[in-house]
């Protein structure tokens, strides 16, 4: 008997780490992940800070919509760190406000697409049969559409407002999530614990949301993180074509679009906003990829 008496603490130290904690530890051990998180936090804080200041009626460094034709198209200087545009508006102030738009679009669009994708994928994977066939063939059909053009068409018809844009991006981009969730459900529904839950007479929705979904959460979370930059880039592209969030509200895309005619003289109007889009997207992609690596049990 005495040989079996292992101290509970010693065993606990080995087995107590939850899967989530393990993923987080491995994620944080990756320097690229740490840098990405810092960049994302930087963007989130500036966006949040600007939005908060704006709500209180203050602006830093300037009012983003304050025009001053005496100071138009000024290159970067100490007064205007990132220069001014063709109406004399401060580019840095406009970009700070653009950050709020980009991050809002990224987060809400992903929330919409995640909601639809998880529900469709869960229903298709859990119930299978004809339901699965109908849902998945619709996904197959929707995937064939040229994504950006489909979004552009819908935004042009419905009118380019912030809410329309995020909902349309979400409505068009859930197919990947649905496929992924369905795949996870197909595997997990055959496991012992799901079968025993079914034998115990648990309701379908409870098995779906309480038993299966938590076990599929890691890959779903990864696609969510990777979906944010997709939405940011899509909104920037729409803004650039004139179908994004409308002026005078500044977005990273429409700062570039507004200055199309001055691009050869005013390099700062295209370089800085584009760079912001690029760096923000890159940080999200790298963080998402690091998260995938960390949650991959084989590596």
């Amino acid at each position, binding site marked *: 008997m005495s040989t079996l008496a292992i101290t509970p603490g010693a065993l606990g130290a080995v087995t107590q780490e939850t899967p989530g904690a393990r993923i987080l530890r491995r994620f944080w051990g990756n320097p*690229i992940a740490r840098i990405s998180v810092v960049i994302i936090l930087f963007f989130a804080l500036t966006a949040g800070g600007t939005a908060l200041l704006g709500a209180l009626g203050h602006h830093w460094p300037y009012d983003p919509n304050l025009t001053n034709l005496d100071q138009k198209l000024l290159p970067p200087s100490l007064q205007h760190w990132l220069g001014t545009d063709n109406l004399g508006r401060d580019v840095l102030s406009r970009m700070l406000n653009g950050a709020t738009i980009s991050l809002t679009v990224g987060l809400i669009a992903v929330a919409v697409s995640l909601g639809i994708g998880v529900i469709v994928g869960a229903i298709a994977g859990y119930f299978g049969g004809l339901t699965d066939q109908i849902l998945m*063939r*619709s996904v*197959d*059909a*929707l*995937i*064939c*559409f*040229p*994504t*950006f*053009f*489909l*979004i*552009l*068409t*819908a935004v*042009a*018809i*419905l*009118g380019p407002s912030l809410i329309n844009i995020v909902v349309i991006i979400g409505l068009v981009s859930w197919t990947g999530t649905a496929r992924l969730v369905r795949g996870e459900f197909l595997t997990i529904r055959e496991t012992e614990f799901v079968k025993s839950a079914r034998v115990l007479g648990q309701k379908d929705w409870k098995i779906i949301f309480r038993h299966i979904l938590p076990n599929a959460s890691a890959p779903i979370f990864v696609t969510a993180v990777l979906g944010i*930059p997709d939405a940011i*880039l899509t909104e*920037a*592209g729409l803004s*650039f*074509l004139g*179908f994004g969030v409308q002026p005078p509200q500044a977005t990273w*895309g429409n700062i*570039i679009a507004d200055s199309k005619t001055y*691009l*050869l003289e005013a*390099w700062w109007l*295209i*370089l800085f906003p*584009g760079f912001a*889009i*690029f*760096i923000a*997207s*890159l940080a999200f*992609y*790298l963080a998402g*990829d690091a998260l995938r690596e960390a949650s991959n049990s084989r590596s």
Partner: protein
Amino acid sequence: MSAFIIRRLALTVVLLFIISIISFFIVTLTPGSPYPWGELNPKISAEVKANFRKKFHLDRPLPEQYAFIMHDLFTGNLRSIKDDRPVLSRIMERLPATLALNFTAILISLSFGTLLGVYAARHAGHWQDITGSFVAFLFIALPGFWISYLIAIGLVKVFGVPILGTQSYGIDFPNAAAAGLDRLWHLLIPAIVLALGGLASQSRYLRATMMESLREDYIRTARSKGLAEDVVLYKHALRNSIRPLISGIGMLLPALLGGSVVVETIFAYPGMGRLGYEAVLERDYPTLVALNFVAAALVLLGNLLSDLLYAVVDKRVRLE
């Protein structure tokens, strides 16, 4: 084999039907005004609106509208609001340029994506792999319109070379070869920009599947036979890893066709993407329905073709 083809064809027909319904619904069922001049324009009389509704069958119940639009599309009666020409022929005249652009882009992303993916898998876990992954995400995160503009400005301002359109105008080329090179140049720049994202995602897919293949027994056998590492990688491992890459083309196409809206607009390239952008600006609904439908159908047919080709080459596919 024939059972496989019949099943695959039947699936394609079903998908084509769903695609046609989706493209019809986007334009007809959305709660915006059906009129290109807006609902409340006082200059438009009720009679003009009634005529418009009649012309596009908007006075009929929905299923009939759908049937009429699809019928009109293929008989050439579905005409553009802009110039009253059949939309199908407007699209068809842009098709060659679009196919050339997208085919070149696919070629670039496949070849360079393969090189980058194999390189990353070969040095998995080392700095070369990390750099390769970083470069891949760099390409994915680049906003297409931004990099297009930077390249366009750079080439025009620094080197003074023309890049817009499909060829340089106002120049007498000494021979056909020079003219051909000029066309190739005009095709290559937008194709490279378009290919960057796909190249990167292809390399990521390939890296993942290559790393699995490299763990297989036949790789150890090939290595222990003393084969050169390049032969092991490109002949043994790549062959068994390439299938997701081929089916990845199907996933690449919608992104390419969508992305070409921006790239074609910037480079003034006369393809379907620019036609689409013009149709959006002009609220040319018939053209929009048709463009979405034709583009999705093209993707579907591309997928069908690659599946069939693959089933011919690889017997394992048919058994699934």
